[in-house]
Structures are given as structure tokens and as C-alpha cells.
């Protein structure tokens, strides 16, 4: 099997990379191990930030549908239920769909494998119905099953806050959201959404224990002092049947490691990040990264990074003229820049600049 550009992961970054390259006439195959493309977009039923060009005010689920339409329109080949089990020398990919195993030869690869949520361990954390927040979000928004009725959320980043809101939308009662830090870590607007509904957002609080026979039935939460120590006597037991952990994400970079890409530890962006240049090309020529695998951000910047990688791959395939590519790249970078502004944008911008600097030091 052969294709010019292979994109691994059909989430926002991968779809945008595919569409951008296919628009330029590149023969693109996008691979995803799930039954449906879209990555995590289809569980994001809230409206996105940004400006018009970023599709601000549009719900993630609608953006997902728009991207799928575009992918189809521009002739992107989509392989679903397909696992990339290996990324080998000479840009060969081992793929399998459960029935057959194949080797896919390609000239460019965009790795857009996204991220997974980090776990948090505490006594009892392995009990059923203690899950990462995104899991509950998938179950309720994609699969339309509510995993529990009385929920404790751990972590006040945007994921925790949004999932608290969305579980309420599906009819669950969110008992509380606890945050170990003295202040909410996500945007206040997301916190305000749930607080005004009466969901207690408890800063300087943590979960200390979960109990239950066959699944979580009760948790203990406690207040923390300024040194992050539990204040004795502050422990409270609460009956719940679902605990959602929202304590951050890490890049799913296994294929990047396998390819032998060079990495750098960038804690601001979630851990070990494959080094890449300003157009998302990595330390191995022809391999690009985009989206959360290139540093944890959010879907809007993932899409812009995907576009960058898609344009860069088109240039490498000789499928777009230099002038047009330069213009497209410039515009994409401007859109990306405006998403990386402000309190939560500056540090991401700086971390991204560090990755690019380290790349050029190689």
C-alpha cells in the first residue's frame, strides 16, 4: 500500500492537516483506530473560544462535522478501525484493521495522535466509576450514557469545569468540584457557569479517599493548608457514585518515540514533547507532528498546527507553489499567535518557542 501523505489520528489536528494537504492536491490517507473520525471533537458540545477564523462560538461537535465534510470534499482517504502498530525506518507504517495486517509506504507523515488524561492516585482510586473526566464526557456526550448521578469532580482546569457543566446538562447532580490549589485553574467563565447553578467549587481541597464495594459509593474530601497539607478535622465524607479526575493531559507520543524523534521535557506542555520546527517538521525529515502530541493546548490551536503541517507536507510534495504556501503559512501562524496570547497563552507561546529553538540547536 502506498500514499503520499499519511496522517495518523483523525482528530482536529489530523483532519486539518489532511484537508490542507488534500486541497493542494496531495494524495492523503488518514488513519484512526476509532470507529468514527473526529477525535475528541464530538464530545466537545460547548462553543469554542477564538475569533471568527477559528470558528469561535461554534460547538466542537459542529466543527467536527464541518471537518469531516471538508475531508470528504477534498478526497481524503479515511481508514477507520485501523491501528498503526509501528512506525519504521524509511517512513514505513505497520497498520492493522483486525482482519489484515499491512505495510503502508509513504513519503510524509503527520503524527497527530493527541493526548490522554493523567490519572491521580489516592486510596481507592482504582474503583469502578472513578474515571478521568474526558471518559465521563465521552460516555455522556458521544455514547449518551450517564455513568453516574452524584458526581465529584477533581481538578478545576477547563476540562474539569466543562465536564461538571456537561454532566449537569445530561441530568447528573455534581456534588462538588475540588481543586488543591487556592484558586480555580481554568477560565473563570467556566467556573462561573457551574457555580451559579449551585455546584460548590472548593479550592484548597482535595480528595483523600474513595470507598465502595464494587464501585465508588463514598469519597472523603479535605481542606489543605498553604503547604498543601491536609488540615486535620476538615475531612468530610460525601456519597457519590461517580468521580471524575481532571488533572491534566499528556501527549500520546508512543509512535514518535518509536520513530526515534528527538524529544525535550517541556512540563508546561504536558511532558516529553517531540522537537519540531516552526512548520511542525520533526528531527526526522518528512515526519511532522501537530496538536496535543506536539504539546498540550486545546482544539483550536491543534487545528491551526494541523494546517501548518498540512501545508508544509504539500510543499515537501511539490504540490503547492512557494508564494501561496508562504502566504498560507503566514496566515496560519497569525491565527495561531492570536490563540497564544494572555495569561494562559503566553506560557504556551514561550514553551512552543523553546521547542523550536531546541530543534534548531540539534
Amino acid at each position, binding site marked *: 500500500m502506498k500514499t503520499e501523505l499519511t496522517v495518523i489520528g483523525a482528530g482536529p489536528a489530523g483532519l486539518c492537516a489532511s484537508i490542507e494537504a488534500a486541497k493542494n492536491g496531495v494524495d492523503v490517507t488518514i488513519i484512526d483506530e476509532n470507529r468514527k473520525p473526529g477525535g475528541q471533537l464530538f464530545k466537545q458540545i460547548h462553543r469554542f473560544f477564538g475569533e471568527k477564523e477559528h470558528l469561535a*462560538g461554534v460547538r466542537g461537535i459542529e466543527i467536527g462535522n464541518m471537518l469531516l465534510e471538508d475531508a470528504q470534499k477534498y478526497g481524503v482517504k479515511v481508514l477507520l478501525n485501523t491501528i498503526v502498530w509501528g512506525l519504521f525506518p524509511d517512513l514505513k507504517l505497520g497498520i492493522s484493521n483486525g482482519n489484515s495486517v499491512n505495510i503502508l509506504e509513504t513519503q510524509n507523515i503527520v503524527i497527530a495522535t493527541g493526548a490522554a488524561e493523567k490519572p491521580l492516585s489516592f486510596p481507592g482510586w482504582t474503583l469502578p466509576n472513578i474515571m478521568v473526566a474526558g471518559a465521563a464526557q465521552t460516555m455522556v456526550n458521544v455514547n449518551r450514557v450517564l455513568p453516574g448521578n452524584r458526581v465529584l469532580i477533581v481538578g478545576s482546569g477547563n476540562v474539569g469545569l466543562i465536564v461538571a457543566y456537561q454532566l449537569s446538562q445530561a441530568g447528573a447532580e455534581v456534588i462538588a468540584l475540588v481543586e488543591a490549589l487556592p*484558586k480555580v485553574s481554568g477560565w473563570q467563565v467556566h467556573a*462561573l457557569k457551574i457555580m451559579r447553578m449551585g455546584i*460548590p467549587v472548593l479550592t484548597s481541597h482535595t480528595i483523600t479517599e474513595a470507598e465502595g464495594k464494587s464501585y465508588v459509593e463514598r469519597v472523603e474530601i479535605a481542606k489543605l493548608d498553604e503547604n498543601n497539607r491536609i488540615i486535620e478535622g476538615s475531612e468530610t465524607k460525601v456519597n457519590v457514585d461517580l468521580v471524575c479526575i481532571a488533572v491534566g493531559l499528556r501527549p500520546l507520543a508512543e509512535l514518535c518515540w518509536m520513530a526515534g524523534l528527538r524529544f525535550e521535557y517541556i512540563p508546561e506542555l504536558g511532558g516529553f514533547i517531540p522537537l519540531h520546527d516552526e512548520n511542525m517538521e520533526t528531527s526526522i525529515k518528512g515526519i511532522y507532528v501537530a496538536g496535543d502530541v506536539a504539546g498540550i493546548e486545546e482544539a483550536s490551536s491543534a487545528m491551526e498546527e494541523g494546517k501548518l503541517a498540512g501545508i508544509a507536507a504539500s510543499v515537501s510534495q511539490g504540490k503547492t507553489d512557494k508564494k501561496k504556501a508562504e502566504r498560507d503559512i503566514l496566515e496560519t501562524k497569525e491565527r495561531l499567535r492570536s490563540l497564544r*496570547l494572555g495569561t494562559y497563552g503566553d506560557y504556551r507561546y514561550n514553551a512552543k518557542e523553546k521547542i523550536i529553538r531546541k530543534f534548531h540547536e540539534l
Partner: protein
Amino acid sequence: MSKNCNLQGMMKAVVSLEELKKSPGYPSEERFKRGPVPVIECVEDIPCNPCELACDRNLISVGKPITNLPRLVDPDALCGGCNKCIIVCPGLVIFIVDKTYSDTEASITLPYEFKPLPKIGDKIMGLNRTGEIVCKGTVHKVQTHKSFNHTNIVTIIVPKEFADDVRFFKAR
């Protein structure tokens, strides 16, 4: 919603009314006197500006960079109550408050993304920004439309003195 007052009592507000009032998206008392007006409770540098484009009367400005706080522009034009800013705000923090609704009452128009939808005339409790019950009120108007894309618009009537506090409600 939670009935666990114990937990709610442990909570601290993320942003105080005083702070909000200092932000450029919060109308002055003068402005309130002129009729309905958007109240924008967005006080962080979020890279986001759909509210600016939503307003046909250019009452809201973000400008460049888009991390600027949304600012209420104060031309002569009054808010027409089209609610587009409420619908499009990803943070769900734009409310249209009319302190001139009557001598004693104010109307608060807010986004509502839950089921079931309240009905006109429903008796409600007004909730403040931390979900505490502060007053009684009634549902005045419920607007839904395909173009709202599931962000429905509910207008409630509360005593005027709670116009700066009430931002949500629950059935009485």
C-alpha cells in the same frame, strides 16, 4: 442542583461584584438607567471575540489583540435586546439586564442550556453567582430558535435590588 449547603458554604467566589463592576464590560448605573444593556462578566484575557461581531449596534468592542477584555461602548444607540451576544458567548457570561423593567423589578435575560425548559409564568428562585438563593422571581419570557443552536434564552423578573446579583434560577 446541589442541596449540600455545607459544601457550598466552603466555597469562595472566583470574582467579586466589586471587581466585576470595575471591568469594562459591566455597565455603569447611568447606563442601566437607559434601558436593557448587556452585562459582560468576562474579566480574564481569553483569546476570544465573537461578542464583538455579534452585536449589530456595535455596543461591544474587543479589538486587537483579541485577549482584550470586552468593553461596553457607550454610543447613543441602545441595546435592542436581540440576545445574539448571549447566545454566542462561549463563556456564557453575557446577560442582558433591564433595570428599567418596572419601578420595583428588573428583568434578567440569560442563557439556558438545560432540559426541561421553564415556562412563562413559572415561579422561580433567583440564584446569585455562587448559586445561593437570594430572591423570588418569575419567568417572563422563554425564547428558542434553531439559529440559537440550543442556547436558549430565558428572561426572569426579580426585585430590582437583586439585579446585580441574580445570574441563574431554579424552580420554586
